């Protein structure tokens, strides 16, 4: 949503958060209503609690460590996890 120059980066983030809400609600509903109830609400709530604390910590870390190091380290981790899932 950064394409429109009239919309600043901050507005883009805000609007994208708003657009995600109906997307997420419908997605969760379909996953849950399908046979097998593919949503663990208890697990989700615990993950969200950790996530809120982590997001603040992450923003603080981003101030101190360089983007490059974080991107490379995270990328390597994802590649390893992807291979683990495949093999």
């Amino acid at each position, binding site marked *: 949503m950064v394409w429109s120059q009239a919309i600043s980066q901050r507005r883009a983030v805000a609007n994208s958060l708003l657009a995600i809400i109906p997307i997420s609600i419908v997605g969760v509903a379909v996953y849950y209503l399908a046979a097998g109830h593919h949503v663990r609400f208890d697990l989700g709530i615990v*993950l969200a609690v*950790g996530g809120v*604390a*982590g997001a603040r910590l992450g923003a603080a870390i981003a101030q101190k460590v360089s983007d490059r190091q974080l991107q490379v380290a995270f990328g390597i981790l994802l590649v390893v996890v992807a291979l683990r899932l495949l093999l």
Partner: protein
Amino acid sequence: MNLIEIGVSLVIGLFAGVVSGALGVGGGVVMVPAMVLLLGVDQAVAQGTSLFVILPTAISGVQSHYRRRNLDLQPTIWIGLVGAIFAAGGAYLAVHVDQLHMRQVFALYLLLVGLQSIYKGVRN
């Protein structure tokens, strides 16, 4: 949930939060594989649960942006509604496809996101 599951989930959530706070990456790329590999959750359940985790974060974010008048309600609602239709289709596919295939497709997606992140870091 037993205490170990709760502890592991808190750590997974924390790590997903750190990564998204620091790099702006969605938490799903961390939470979904972590649920599958560390908690033994089915691929589809991990994906459905990860979608659910987005909700409280997005709602609290939207509240604060609404107060600061950062939202363009009309165009965004349309984007959200069209997105929701496709999300329904995607979710329907995800629960009906063979879970092993779903996991492999997800792993390929992770591989691409990982390689892209390494490329960005090296290029910068």
